[in-house]
């Protein structure tokens, strides 16, 4: 009898242990996913911050550029650099056949002409002399150099030819291949060529959208929250507004995209693909988030503050505007930043209003067509070229960096400035 009891007790304890183990492993699994996730993004993305350059000797021959003896600055600007650039690449292997010459040309980006031109414009005295110029390597060679591209595939299955690899290896041996920090990733707009694609256009698009979103959502949300928390009479209509806000907070983001498409673009005829429309759409989405955060922080201001102000003869409006609202600002601001961070990561609604268009200029205002960082991630992820994979991860790193900064900022505001009432 006693033994039975002990057995039962032991099995109950074992069940207890098992249950705890399930709980621990659930948390472990969740954190494991997070780790794998971040590791994967970083390990594929960090190489994108380096860019491979070929250092090629360029002979600035006046004749190849169809220039006179003493060209003016204007002449230099208008000169034809294409033949010079081609000649430079062909000179890498003087015995190259026509097909091989084509391969040689494709070892660098199509910006090579511009890169050579920039060099000469910086120093016009180079004419007739030879100088080493840094040329952006094509993205396939870039990937080879970073070790992301398997070299042992049969030739017809890879985009780099054996010939290109041979020349490239020669260059590497001569120390003519260099890897430097990839500044152009941050300063160039999007491009079809992976080695030239940058996030500048989508970054500006994101900034403009978020600004439009902030300008619209913040005042409206704060005013609405003040009304609902401080002034609204308790009646059916107020309840209706509250139900609306709670439901809007849970409406899938893509529905807001349909709203932007069906109302902002179709009815109001606002310009397609612009951060203006994107920002308005996002502001409608963040509105409930900010309202809820602002109401919570207004609610946290103790009634004694209000009573004291009222007792001093302040009107209801004065009490609210001079005392309650300023005291609730830290909570409101951190809620706003978190709402904006959500908006910054949003993709689906922006795709529907056309911010997915290929934009290779940097937008200068919210009325210029643009993409945004998450949409850029989507665009690059959909393209097949290998060079874009690391770009996507790098873009994700930039985006996550911004989200982390915004969230930290929200935390700091909350902890530093929020008064603890107790």
């Amino acid at each position, binding site marked *: 009898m006693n033994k039975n009891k002990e057995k039962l007790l032991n099995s*109950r304890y074992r*069940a*207890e242990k098992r*249950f705890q183990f*399930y*709980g*621990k*492993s*659930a*948390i472990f*699994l*969740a*954190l494991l*996913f*997070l780790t794998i*996730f971040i590791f994967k*993004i970083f390990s594929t993305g960090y190489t994108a911050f380096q860019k491979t350059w070929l250092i090629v000797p360029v002979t600035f021959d006046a004749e190849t550029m169809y220039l006179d003896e003493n060209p003016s600055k204007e002449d230099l600007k208008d000169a034809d650099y294409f033949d010079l650039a081609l000649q430079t690449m062909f000179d890498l292997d003087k015995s190259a056949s026509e097909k091989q010459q084509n391969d040689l040309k494709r070892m660098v980006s199509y910006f090579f002409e511009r890169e050579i031109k920039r060099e000469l414009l910086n120093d016009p005295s180079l004419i007739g002399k030879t100088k080493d110029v840094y040329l952006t390597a094509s993205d396939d060679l870039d990937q080879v150099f970073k070790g992301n591209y398997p070299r042992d595939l049969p030739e017809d299955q890879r985009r780099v030819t054996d010939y290109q690899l041979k020349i490239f290896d020669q260059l590497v041996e001569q120390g003519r291949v260099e890897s430097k920090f990839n500044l152009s990733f941050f300063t160039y707009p999007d491009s079809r060529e992976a080695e030239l694609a940058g996030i500048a256009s989508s970054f500006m698009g994101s900034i403009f959208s978020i600004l439009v979103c902030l300008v619209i959502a913040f*005042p*409206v*949300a704060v*005013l*609405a929250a003040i*009304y609902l928390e401080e*002034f609204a009479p308790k009646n059916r209509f107020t309840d*209706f507004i509250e139900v*609306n*806000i*709670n*439901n*809007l907070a849970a*409406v*899938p983001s*893509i*529905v*807001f995209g*349909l*709203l932007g*498409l*069906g109302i902002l673009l*179709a009815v109001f005829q606002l310009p397609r693909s612009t951060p203006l429309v994107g920002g308005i759409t996002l502001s409608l989405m963040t*509105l409930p988030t900010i309202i809820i955060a602002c109401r919570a922080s207004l609610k946290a201001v103790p009634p004694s503050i209000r009573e004291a102000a009222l007792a001093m003869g302040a*009107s209801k*409006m004065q009490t609210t505007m001079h005392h309650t609202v300023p005291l609730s600002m830290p909570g409101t601001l951190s809620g706003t930043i978190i709402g904006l*961070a*959500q908006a910054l*990561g949003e*993709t*689906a609604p922006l*795709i*529907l209003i056309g911010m997915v268009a290929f934009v290779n200029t940097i937008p200068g205002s919210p009325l210029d067509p643009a993409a945004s960082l*998450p*949409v850029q*991630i*989507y665009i690059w*992820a959909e393209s097949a070229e290998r060079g874009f994979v690391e770009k*996507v991860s790098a873009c*994700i790193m930039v*985006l*996550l960096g911004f989200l982390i900064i915004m*969230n930290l900022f929200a935390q700091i505001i909350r902890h530093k400035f929020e008064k603890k009432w107790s």
Partner: protein
Amino acid sequence: MNLVIFIFIVLLGFTSYYFGRKKAYSIQATNTRLTALPQFYGYYLAIWCAIPAFIIYSLWAIFEPSIVKLIILSDYSNQGYLDDELNLIYEKTKSLSRGQFSGEITPYLETSAEKYLNLRSIAQNSKVVLILTIIIASIVYGYKRISSNNRTREPVEKFLNAVLFTASLAAILTTIGIVFSLIFQTIDFFKVIPLFDFIFGTHWYPAKAFVRDASEPLDPSMYSDTFGAVPIFAGTFFIALIAMCVAIPIGLMSGIYLAEYASTKVRQYAKPLIEILAGIPTVVYGFFAALTVGPFLKDIGTAMGLEVSAESALAAGGVMGIMIIPFISSLSDDVITSVPQGLRDGSYAMGATKSETIKKVIFPAALPGIVGSILLGVSRAVGETMIVVMASGLAANLTFNPLESTSTITAQIVVILIGDQAFGDPKTQAAFALGMTLFLVTLSLNIFALRVVKKYREKYE
């Protein structure tokens, strides 16, 4: 020009604040008792100065283009033009008047462009005159009211109250906007496609609707068997199911562990870490699913001799499940912590172990709240877009094999609407009809879930 007027009004508003206040001070200086603080007189005057002008300004901005258009196009009436052609003529006129027109310039067009420019300048001038008159009149009125030592606090506060109230209508307006943007297109869609075919049809092939000569009238028979939404409803349900299979056990168990077992220190770190998962943008999850999880599952499948699509429902659903873990874990954590301590103490006093207490006492007590949190998770899964667009297929297969690719409502909306859309095309309308379905489904899930959670809260408060 418009910007100048706008800035002018704003500046005038600010200056009139100072004038109003100054006036109030000067009244005060004569030892007359004011009925409000001096700055209220300033606000009062500023409101009188700026608001009527703004109202006129915005009304003008809204109605001017359509009135001008009416006048211009009245020349072309009774000539048998269609609406589209009239619109085209108007656009041509506008671009000609800006000097950007590159097509053939007919004399008619030239007269219209001239008339357009003329009208615009008349409109602009009369707008400036009207706004100035309004401003002067309202300032004079406001200023007079101040001098008679009027009560100004009440009207100012009433005005502010009205502003606050208007702001709170934004939420309702957004909801109305959503419903309006969806409903008209949806109704048009169901005029062509019978509701029955949409709900019970088993073939979803919207690309077929694209192969159509736009000039020919719609032929409904052509669309039979094109917009049967069963495959995508099934796909949506199926992927959400896979997601919940991942999210419920992990989310619920970690919620329980955090609420009942974890020390404050573990809780302090583990909870925000898990919540990071909720802050990662969905497009990032989509990339992760498409690049890492999809090929990984495919490799495993091939090694086991299974046919696995690189864009399997399992990859999309699994990653979506990871995304939903934090929603379920933190909501169920909240729900479990709010179960009264008395229930726990009672159970321990009877000799139950901690896990028995959780399983037999706390869990049943917290069940409504947990169900609510799961429903909210389901509504997330149904509305999630980017993961499915990037990681699952875009062709709507009617399948319940997790290793094959399938599509969802959200993915189809994106597929249809990406790029250029032609309103009035059944294909575009289909996307809105899907959006309507999605809106209604998530709305009812949310309302139901919130009601369940609310009922539960009331029980213990």
